[in-house]
């Protein structure tokens, strides 16, 4: 049997803000190409899990491995020490993130939002970056908005640009942190359609996705695995059918009943 190594591994991860324990010892693995949906009540620690991986926040204890390499630590003389910025910079190459509130660069047009990082970070030529950026913007259906500033876009359009901006960096791992939670209900669909297209068509086919969402139908549709998170621990996980049709824990049953009313 071929053993597949996980692309992401959380190892006894905890995170606390003062006395508030947000993550209470998470052991969790994601495999290459896997689409994992993280569900659970607000404030359960789902977002923190993604933010640790994006290196926006540092774990209080435990380690995270990405492709077998420690993310937040380096081994020096057999001792684990906090990694230097250079190491984090290296590790971030493979990870992209889409935020709940988009965070587009307001001083740049749609095109520049998407082509800035390829030029500055990847050192791509302007011509090549423009080509790649246009390809991604086309993919999210906004090719007619190239020279528009974010302020003139709807929330759904902003999020689609943010997705194109992350995709153009060709990350192996994409994190979606409640990508539709800040949107008006009528704009949710267009963003989900784009994410679905990436997930199904698989952009580069083997992109690993971690999706934090409250859209249960959507999670069921695109995810290979659903992870239910509550109060800083993983309560239950399994295939979408298992989890949604046959929830075992009372906590998940209660959580799901709120969506099926």
């Amino acid at each position: 049997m071929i053993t597949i190594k996980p692309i992401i591994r959380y190892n006894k991860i905890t995170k606390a803000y003062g006395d508030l324990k947000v993550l209470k010892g998470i052991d969790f693995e994601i495999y290459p190409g896997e689409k994992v949906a993280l569900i659970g009540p607000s404030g359960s620690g789902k977002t923190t899990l993604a933010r640790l991986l994006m290196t926006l926040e540092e774990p209080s204890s435990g380690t995270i491995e990405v492709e077998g390499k420690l993310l937040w630590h380096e081994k020096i003389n057999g001792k684990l020490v906090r990694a230097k910025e250079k190491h984090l910079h290296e590790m971030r190459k493979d990870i992209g993130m889409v935020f709940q509130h988009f965070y587009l660069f307001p001083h740049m047009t749609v095109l520049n939002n998407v082509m800035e990082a390829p030029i500055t970070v990847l050192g791509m030529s302007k011509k090549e970056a423009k080509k790649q950026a246009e390809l991604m913007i086309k993919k999210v259906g906004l090719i007619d908005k190239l020279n528009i500033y974010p302020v003139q876009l709807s929330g759904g359009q902003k999020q689609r640009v943010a997705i194109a901006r992350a995709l153009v960096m060709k990350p192996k791992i994409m994190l979606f942190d409640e990508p539709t939670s800040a949107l008006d209900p009528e704009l949710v669909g267009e963003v989900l359609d784009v994410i679905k297209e990436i997930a199904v068509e698989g952009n580069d086919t083997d992109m690993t996705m971690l999706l934090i969402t409250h859209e249960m139908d959507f999670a069921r549709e695109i995810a290979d695995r659903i992870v239910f998170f509550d109060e800083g621990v993983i309560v239950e996980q399994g295939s979408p059918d298992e989890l949604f049709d046959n929830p075992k824990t009372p906590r998940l049953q209660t959580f799901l009943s709120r969506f099926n009313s």
Partner: protein
Amino acid sequence: MFDWKFAVNILPKILASLKITIVATFAGFFLALVLGLVLSILSKSRIKPVSRLTNGVVLFIRNTPLLVQLYFIFYVFPEYGLTLEPLSAGILGLGIHYSTYLSEVYRSGIENVPHGQWEAAKALNFTRMETWTKIILPQAIPPILPVLGNYLITMFKETPLLSAITLVEILQTAKIIGAGSFKYLEGFTIVGIIFFILSYPSSRLIKSLDVRLNKKF
């Protein structure tokens, strides 16, 4: 009585020294712009001793008079081997003094950029330096340009202080003319009018700039 003929006679002399005033203003302001930005970035450094020291220096300079600082640069520094021409000393004094005010202006601009912009930049793997130059400063500076402009005008009007360190700018020129002819009214009036003529339209210009900049995004 105001002697018009005398006024017309001395006008070219005063205008000739206007060059010194203008040079001191712009060179001092340029220094303040650069130094102010450096101070505001250092005060945001994640290395605690650096940010504390920076804040201490800013606090000290802001709370001591510009004139005292000018005297120090011009009269005390030479005792320690640094002798400067009046103009250079004046530019240095104005630049350092105003940099502490401008660093506050930069700070307000920088802090108005939402934290999410830093996070988005990090997620795209910009280095900290690239984040400053490509993402944060281009958003932080346009809104503060009018305030910076107003400081430029304020600084321009402070340049007569440099006469205290023997710089012959327009006020000093008028004073010398007065001392030689016992006619002070004409010279000082001309100096006042020159300051007004240059300051007022500039402040109007800055106001219209403000309106245009705030429309952009």
